[in-house]
């Protein structure tokens, strides 16, 4: 039978426990197989050619989404659809629902995993910027125990992460700040050429506002993540810094967008020229900030009514 695209020869092992997976992963040229929706296409194209695949799909302990000790804990094996369906995640971080709605398509989202997206480290992948905006932490498990790496230090470059041979991304922890006086909110805005496609550019924003509901509020903390535009660690650090202490209004957001556009490094490709991508960064950053601020105001209103 003549096949158009098949992976090269590869060994396959199914991990029966996390420890088993870690032992298998200590061998060289081994790759973790979760949803496989990035890895298998890469293997077909010989962009990845591991000696052995370690299938972790049976490790249910890595797939939960829960709130624990002030952190939203998302297992690396949680599927995109799990995060999209999680009311808990949506309540604390609507940015994840915004982003998951535009990751690939509904069938792919049933299988592709949150951890797989982060570990694939594709510059156009949506969750890296979303997690960067939320100041999340990656929990990496090795045979000697866990180590925690801020997600803003997790990616070393395109398709490269800090995960070493013999290690496995176990979960991502997102700090849930206590109730902010002015509320907190988040959002993700993406432009793609067609439904389900990779981003031309996208921006995620997380805002924590200080001040009285209805009165003067200021931005206590801003997190801004950028997708597909060469932002270092997917972060718009200069724009975040600019917003601290400013009023959460259109003027500030437009300025933050301009700063983000100035400091990122998009490259021209089949998705568009550089200046168009910078234009998108400015506009999408401002839109994500506006939406995050609107959600923060709603959250503050709800908290106010409860008193």
């Amino acid at each position, binding site marked *: 039978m003549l096949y158009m695209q098949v992976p090269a020869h590869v060994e396959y092992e199914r991990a029966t426990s996390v420890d088993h997976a870690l032992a298998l992963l200590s061998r060289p040229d081994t790759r973790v197989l979760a949803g496989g929706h990035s890895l298998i296409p890469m293997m077909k194209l010989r962009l990845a050619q591991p000696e052995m695949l370690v299938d972790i799909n049976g490790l249910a302990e890595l797939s939960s989404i829960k709130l624990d000790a002030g952190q939203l804990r998302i297992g690396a094996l949680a599927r995109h659809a799990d995060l999209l369906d999680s009311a808990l995640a949506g309540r604390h971080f609507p940015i994840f629902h915004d982003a998951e709605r535009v990751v690939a398509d509904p069938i*792919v989202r049933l299988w592709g995993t949150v951890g797989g997206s982060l570990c694939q480290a594709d510059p156009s992948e949506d969750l890296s910027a979303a997690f960067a905006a939320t100041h999340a932490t990656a929990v990496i498990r090795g045979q000697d125990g866990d180590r925690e790496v801020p997600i803003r230090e997790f990616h070393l470059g395109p398709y490269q992460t800090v995960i070493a041979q013999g290690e496995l991304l176990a979960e991502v922890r997102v700090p849930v700040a206590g109730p902010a006086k002015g509320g907190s909110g988040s959002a993700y805005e993406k432009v793609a050429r067609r439904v389900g496609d990779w981003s031309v550019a996208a921006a995620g924003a997380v805002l924590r506002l200080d001040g009285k509901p209805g009165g003067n509020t200021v931005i206590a903390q801003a997190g801004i993540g950028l997708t597909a535009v060469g932002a270092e660690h997917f972060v718009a650090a200069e724009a975040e810094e600019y917003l601290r202490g400013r009023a959460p209004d259109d003027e500030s957001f437009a300025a933050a967008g301009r700063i983000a556009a100035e400091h990122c490094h998009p490259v021209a490709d089949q998705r568009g020229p550089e200046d168009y991508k910078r234009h998108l960064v400015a506009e999408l950053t401002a839109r994500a900030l506006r939406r995050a601020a609107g959600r923060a105001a709603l959250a503050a209103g709800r908290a106010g009514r409860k008193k």
Partner: protein
Amino acid sequence: MTMRVAVTVNGTEYARDVEPRLLLIHFIRDELGLTGSHWGCDTSNCGSCVVWLDRKPVKACTVLAAMADGRIVRTVEDLERDGRLDPVQQGFVACHGLQCGFCTSGMMMTARWLLDRNPDPDEAEIREAISGQICRCTGYENIVRSVRWAAQNPGNPEHPAETL
């Protein structure tokens, strides 16, 4: 090097010695001879190869047969039960939901899954559900009508899809 892969497909257990790199769609079509599931773009874009794996649709060109070992697969051949077409199949007949038919098995497997979760989807929900699948004939209009038809004619309750 081969490995033993045992999969329950449409209620029947099959075991085959295959290479770990074999894709599930080729296992289903070439090893088992179930050719209702189609092999299309090979890049998880078109959705012609959609089958169910452990009761969820999957693009079978993008999973290995090895990953299905010990699991349950359902293909389009299982939609018909006891000589009676699934309401989704009846809908595609009634509303002319296909022309060339290449995308049809994948479309119907996704539609069945959608209706099991959401028995009365509106047009937007149907279009969202099939948004990862490509039809080059119908412009999708008749596919959406076919799924709506199935929702309005749920048919044969003594054979719910969950009994596989």
